[in-house]
């Protein structure tokens, strides 16, 4: 039964119209993803009416291809402009841009593309084989478990601010504080809004992200002028695809990051924006050359990029198996099913199995389409680095303004973006890392809501977090992760060395 649907879905994908839809979706996705402020979610929503006239499997394949390729597109702007095109590419900035500065923009994009392909394929395979099995996993993540995931995520601040711990903690705490702006999730009371209606739903994360990264970069380019242009821009001639030896060295990292991406996607409420940081953090934890992270290390690009593409498959698992969207983009995808008259839910795998399996195959083929289209398109994109700073800087500002307005059709958001631009610029000047602020902004709302909900469920007892096995384990890992970043851990290591030292001598 399942096999026949698998086959029917595969044959559907090979329908010329569907292949064309996948390629078209891929192209649109890359372009949209590379524009700061235009997110995959928004692109799916905007494209949705266009797919009305298509047969459901064609329309949905196109939207899935778009979703997947937007994840890669986000890294183009992150690497070339130091401005993440989508929130899921925020971690790619950390090593992608420094690498491009070294004249290896092509190589950075090539690593990103390769990692995206493998991450995407891993998650497609998981999706095709284990979707019904893994689907129920999403049900195990309620508020209590989600709180523990968020706490674990917060500990990433420690590793992201190595070297500048106080500044990093300040940045992370400020992010958490800003995340409390808006209506309280359990009482509806507005907090820190000063009666400003536009702040009632909180600070829109994407708006803050655009401001934090793009405005300081534009200012920096302007200050730099075109003086050291030759040093900064890369030659397009550099090899894009990694050599086999390089690839083999990156592979364990990519597979691990892909796994992290699938898992993060599975958990409802967390998506590519969280997964990219988790993967980056783990890549750094496992790496021997920790000090190279942040200076243009290939592993620092491969990890977030493999993860954010793997999220797509992971997020689709509960969506397909149970009708529970694993991320905001899959929520819009579910909307697309509804528009085509398919009610999202458990019947997706039974009554509508043919369309669903077409979607699953489409995701797999979209990865391959993305790789091919990406190779061609990226060559064009790299030429951005040839454009003089005096042209690029204003373009970044224009994109930032348009992007932050387009998100909610709101002038207020443009002002908000500029305020965050100023914060980002100040942070750069005072050598305060921006990444922890981003982590705080992403995880703050999750922490806030899940903590309050857990306390309501647990009748006000904090023990609820330790009585629950999943959350207890996650919290223990978090504690370990914190200790690892403190002097205590180093001290313990030293003590052990000392006590065992003499005997060895």
């Amino acid at each position, binding site marked *: 039964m399942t096999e026949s649907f698998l086959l029917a879905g595969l044959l559907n994908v090979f329908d010329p119209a569907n292949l064309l839809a996948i390629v078209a979706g891929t192209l649109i996705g890359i372009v949209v993803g590379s524009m700061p402020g235009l997110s995959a979610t928004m692109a799916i929503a905007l494209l949705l009416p266009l797919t009305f006239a298509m047969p459901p499997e064609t329309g949905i394949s196109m939207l899935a291809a778009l979703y997947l390729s937007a994840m890669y597109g986000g890294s183009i702007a992150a690497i070339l402009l130091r401005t993440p095109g989508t929130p899921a590419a925020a971690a790619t900035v950390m090593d992608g841009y420094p690498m491009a500065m070294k004249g290896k923009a092509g190589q950075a994009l090539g690593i990103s593309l390769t990692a995206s392909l493998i991450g995407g394929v891993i998650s497609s395979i998981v999706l095709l084989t284990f979707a019904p099995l893994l689907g129920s996993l999403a049900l195990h993540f309620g508020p209590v478990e989600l709180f523990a995931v968020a706490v674990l995520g917060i500990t990433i601040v420690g590793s992201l601010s190595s070297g500048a711990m106080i500044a990093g903690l300040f940045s992370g705490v400020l992010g958490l504080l800003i995340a409390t702006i808006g*209506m309280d*999730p359990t*009482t*509806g009371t507005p907090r820190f809004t000063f009666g400003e209606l536009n702040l009632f739903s909180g600070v829109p994360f994407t708006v803050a992200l655009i401001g934090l990264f793009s405005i300081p970069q534009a200012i920096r380019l302007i200050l730099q002028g075109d003086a050291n242009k030759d040093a900064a821009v890369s030659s397009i001639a550099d090899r894009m695809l990694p050599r086999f030896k390089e690839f083999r060295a990156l592979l364990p990292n990519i597979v691990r990051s892909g796994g992290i991406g699938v898992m993060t996607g599975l958990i409802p409420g967390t998506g590519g924006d969280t997964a990219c940081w988790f993967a980056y953090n783990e890549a750094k934890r496992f790496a021997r050359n920790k000090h190279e992270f942040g200076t243009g290390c290939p592993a620092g690009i491969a990890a977030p990029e493999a993860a954010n593409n793997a999220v797509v498959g992971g997020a689709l698992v509960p969506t397909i198996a149970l009708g529970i969207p694993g991320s905001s983009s899959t929520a*819009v995808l579910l909307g697309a099913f509804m528009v085509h008259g398919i009610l999202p*839910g458990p*019947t997706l795998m039974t009554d509508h199995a043919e369309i669903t399996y077409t979607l699953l195959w489409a995701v797999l083929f979209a990865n391959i389409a993305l790789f091919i289209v990406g190779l061609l398109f990226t060559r064009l994109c790299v030429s951005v680095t040839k454009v003089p700073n005096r042209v690029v800087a204003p373009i970044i500002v224009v994109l930032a303004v348009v992007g932050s307005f387009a998100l*909610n059709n709101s002038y207020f958001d443009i002002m908000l973006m500029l305020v965050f631009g100023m914060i980002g610029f100040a942070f750069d000047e005072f050598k305060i890392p921006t990444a922890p602020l981003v982590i705080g902004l992403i995880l703050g709302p999750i922490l806030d809501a899940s903590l309050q909900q857990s306390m309501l469920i647990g009748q006000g007892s904090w023990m609820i977090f330790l009585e629950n096995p999943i959350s207890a384990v996650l919290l223990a890992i978090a504690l370990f992760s914190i200790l690892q970043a403190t002097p205590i851990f180093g001290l313990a290591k030293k003590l052990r060395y000392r006590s065992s030292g003499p005997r060895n001598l």
Partner: protein
Amino acid sequence: MQTRILAATTAGLLASVMGFSTALAQEDQAGQDYVGGDEVTVLMGFKPGGGSDALAQLVQPFLADEMGVNFVNQYQPGAVGAIAWTRLAKQIEPDGETISITNTPMLMTNYIMNEAITYDISELTPIANIVTDPGVVVVAKDSPYKNFDDLINAAKENPGTVTVGNSGVGGDDWFSTIILSKEAGVEFQTVPFQGDGPSWTAAMGGKIDASFNNVGITYPQIEAGNLRALAVFAEERLPSLPDVPTAKELGYDVVAGSSRGYSAPAGLSEEARQQLANGLQRVTEDPEFQKAAADRAMNIDFMGPEKYTAYLQDQEQRFIEVWDEIKDEVQGSGS
């Protein structure tokens, strides 16, 4: 043929210049040209992909055919719709060129519960209601609560320990929980989530004891047997869930749900209002539309201008009463 098009165009031009078109009889079924022009902006208070968007995507293509008017969605999400509705009430000209999808109860609970939100329904012209999604109480399939009385009795025996999820503070599910608690004289531990999905998912995973949601959203899971519906908050049993009793027949007078319709700013001409309402009514009577709505589990509940206005006013009154009673409790417990 050509002359007819010409005549229609001239008529349209005349109509828009003169601002009314009563004298211009036309042969086509759509009747007179819409006085608000040939393009209407629909202000959306919620993100694309949500319930309001689903309604707009469903209704507006039919309405466009019916009225010969183009509908363009403008999304201004934020503050549970309050940003868009404040703009509708305070800034938009009532010329019929801009209307909005209005949802109950958020349209009213926004300003009832927050002093900073200053519009109210007297600043709007309700046009028509289109759909109402009745409330439903669901539990996991393996839940010990086999029927509605089990749930109520559990809450009676151990007040404040039965956890009940809802889609968020100020939403219809949240209000129906409060009204039911009062009716039955029990105390639930309410847990607000960010939207319907997380709430019923938590119930399905056994993270909470029950979830108050809407039928349209949970129907596929009820059908598949993953969730068990204990009661619906409708006047009568629903054709889609014939075995699920209404709260009313079980002795609890709770009829609740979320409704979505169209409204314009106050001062909209009676003519424009009637044209839109008539167009919407014809859409809801179209068998093709009815089928499309049924496919999407949307429960058509058409109310014309007068009825919709009265409905909104009645709901407003009820929410004010409930909120006055419980506001200290809710906002005081948030620490």
